[in-house]
């Protein structure tokens, strides 16, 4: 069996006096599709943001692909990571945001080509060729010259997925990527993600309130509450036969709110 691609070792994170994460540990295997579910405020987004280096940890260790994320090894000592180390580590990770975060002043194609050209020195022609392949994959090739303001939410999110994929990360983080969309646009984004899961061996971490999708998509589901993993297991175990009371209560509430499982 291979080594985990993500190894989180008793990390802590507080916002002011409020402890969001307190000694959380978890591991993700290469190629694994992981769904993170749990009530609002349980720390799901915070975990993804920490992995993307958008938030720093207060304690603990994270290893990505066998290397420390927030620490550098120098002469056998662990030092806090500097910007150069973080830049190198970020190459392995991509993130798709709830609100897309497209660059409004750049057309769809330029949104996708910007980072490869700047961070990898990819020549424009090669970057555009790859971008068109990705846009084609997410069904947005015909809108390559449009500005983001002309797109629907679902279209924007598909472009944002293509943009993150353009850097070929080993790990992709998805934070409630459909929750800002009108209901009729959710499916087009989920379809892209299904395709991605089927066609690539990327490791994917998904935070979602779409329980039906989490069930079909994930190899493993983690149920979070108050910054801790309350229960984890195969989708069928978590969704059909949850063992913990809190998991049962959460799923009941979700179903009552009209989400299908």
């Amino acid at each position, binding site marked *: 069996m291979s080594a985990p691609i993500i190894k989180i070792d008793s990390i802590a994170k507080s916002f002011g006096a409020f402890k969001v994460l307190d000694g959380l540990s978890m591991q993700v295997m290469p190629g694994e599709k992981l769904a993170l579910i749990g009530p609002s405020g349980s720390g799901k987004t915070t975990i993804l943001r920490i992995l993307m280096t958008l938030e720093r940890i207060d304690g603990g260790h994270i290893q990505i692909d066998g290397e420390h994320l927030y620490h550098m090894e120098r002469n056998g000592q662990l030092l806090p990571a500097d910007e150069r180390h973080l830049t190198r580590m970020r190459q392995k990770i991509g993130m798709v945001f709830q609100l897309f975060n497209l660059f409004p002043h750049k057309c769809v194609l330029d949104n996708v080509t910007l980072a490869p050209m700047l*961070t990898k020195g990819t020549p424009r022609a090669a970057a555009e060729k790859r971008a068109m392949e990705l846009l084609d994959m997410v069904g947005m090739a015909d809108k390559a010259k*449009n500005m983001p303001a002309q797109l629907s939410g679902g279209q924007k999110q598909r472009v944002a997925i293509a943009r993150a994929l353009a850097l070929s990360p080993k790990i992709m983080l998805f934070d409630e990527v459909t929750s800002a969309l009108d209901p009729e646009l959710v499916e087009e984004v989920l379809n892209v993600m299904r395709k991605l899961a089927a066609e690539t061996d990327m490791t994917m971490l998904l935070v979602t309130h779409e329980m039906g999708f989490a069930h079909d998509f994930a190899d493993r589901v983690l149920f979070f509450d108050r910054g801790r993993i309350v229960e984890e297991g195969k989708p069928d175990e978590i969704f059909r036969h949850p063992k913990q009371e809190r998991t049962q209560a959460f799923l009941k509430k979700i179903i009552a709110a009209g989400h299908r499982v």
Partner: protein
Amino acid sequence: MTDWSGYLYLILQGALVTVELTLMGSVLALIMAFVAGLGRLSRFFAVRALATAYIEFFRGTSIFVQLFWVYFVLPLAGFELTPLQAGVLGLGLNVGAYGAEVVRGAVQSIGKEQYEACVALNLGRWQGMRHVILPQALLLMLPTFGNNAIELLKATSVVSLISLADMTFQANIVRSQTGNTMLPFATILILYFAMASAISWGVRTLERRMARGLDGVRT
């Protein structure tokens, strides 16, 4: 009967000096605005302190006194400047200090999510600033930059203090030579207004063109 065409020529010569001062001063002001405005957002304390000192000093003292220093005091320290150089330097530094706050405000008003997208795409700080933040911030800066340029135009009349023959200076000459106040000053009133209108129009056009890029199809 006075020969007005000769005097008009004099005023137009002054107008040329005013335009020259406004253009060159604006270029310097623009450079200073970005240097000091981004300097105030620097990670490094020394850079922030330097930028803040520049901004506060030039906003806190009058352009009149600044010009006096640039032209009459700097030479004592060995910096000999022509009146035009002194005028451009004084005006550019003064208006640049106001512009710096515009740059800082516009950059800070770009949403946190744009910075986070830059991190997620692994852009360096400067790459993100240059390709993502500044192009969006520029649109927000433009209207105020237009106002600043008009302020600079109006401030050019202080250069007569350092014997630069700008439009106001020439109008005064005409007045003292002809005894007529109405005609020369009505003339420069119109000219100043025309120049300010040209600046407004230019900035508005630029703004419209940039804003159109945000919701149109790029071809």
